[in-house]
């Protein structure tokens, strides 16, 4: 069983393997899921070349950076890329998002539906294109 917290606006703020003294902020509420912590984490995972859960740095002009999208049981998923929402088609729960590395900058990729998916853990991917 995993536990997660919704903010006052209904978005999932965080989830955890045990409540362990977690203090809610104003408007936040607790929810439980029969899924294990690992299974809840694996509902949506974003990675670049197998690297997830940390900043991915790519050099400028190194071609396209490919974000692997792993969302078991879904045929597509909407992702927010720096505020722009894009649908990613999935085959067997897997898809790819291509990002240009032509210009330096930072891509922040999160699930667009934050009431269903948590924009934390491995469901949040930051790709930094640096000179």
């Amino acid at each position, binding site marked *: 069983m995993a536990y997660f917290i919704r903010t006052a606006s209904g978005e999932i703020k*965080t989830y955890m393997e045990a409540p362990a003294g977690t203090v809610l902020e104003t408007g936040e509420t607790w929810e439980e899921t029969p899924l294990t912590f*690992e299974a809840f*984490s694996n509902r949506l995972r974003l990675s670049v070349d197998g690297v997830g859960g940390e*900043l991915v740095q790519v050099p400028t002009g190194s071609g396209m950076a490919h974000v692997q999208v792993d969302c078991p049981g879904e045929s597509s998923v909407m992702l927010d890329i720096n505020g722009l929402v894009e649908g990613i088609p999935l085959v067997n729960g897997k898809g790819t998002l291509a990002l240009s590395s032509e210009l330096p900058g930072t891509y922040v990729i999160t699930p667009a539906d934050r009431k269903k998916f948590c924009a934390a853990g*491995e469901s949040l991917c930051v790709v930094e294109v640096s000179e």
Partner: protein
Amino acid sequence: MSAPVYPASVDVSPGQPTASTQYNNLRKDALTLGAAPADARTLGQFFIRYISGVRLEYLATNRVRVPYVTTNPPSVMVNGYLCQATASVDLPASSFSGGAATWYIFARRNAGSASFTLEINTSPVEGTDQRLIGQSYWDGSNVNASSVYTYAVQGLGLPDYDSGFFAVADSNTYTKAHNLGQAPRLVVLLHATSSTPNSNDELALVNTVSISYGVSNMSWNATNIIAQSGTTAGYGTCLNIRRYSGSGYWRLQAWK
């Protein structure tokens, strides 16, 4: 109160009758080092929980070992028997099984042996001829090597508060009530890139996060530990020369 007379018994000569007083003094010397029974536990009672030189360590694959050290041999009193190993003591292979759980590790005294063996159970209750000496965590597939812990070993013990892993992102505040009854003396915040890191995965220490420059990110009092992520995308949950992150998982541990 004066110190007990020890030894209270004296030498006897060949052929000399042994009086009851002499016998009782000898017995008092043996049991309580000369002290009156009302003033001292017997040596057997005193050493009933004796343990020395017993330090559990992980043994590949999915086993634990009490290594033998010549200068400090593993010694433990089990059910009133003085057991001492003469070689390293290993838990038999394939002892762990089933779902994820904390397994408790026991020294077992065996009839006809002055040493001891190791066995495990998900219950910490000691059985006959068993002595509870430690624990480890089985995740359902593997023993977490860093979870192997010996109760008798002096030093940093298991944390008094452990949040477990929780998902994190930039620009958030995470407050945990530690229930220690006092401000912790030591707090450690760890970062993992996976929700279920195995024992060989690298965990990064989080002392600093970025708000365009690096800042410390934790405070605590007698009630709560507050950990706050930074605001710089990609650097808000871990600013460590080994790893930068604005996502991943944190785990808070505290000692009092």
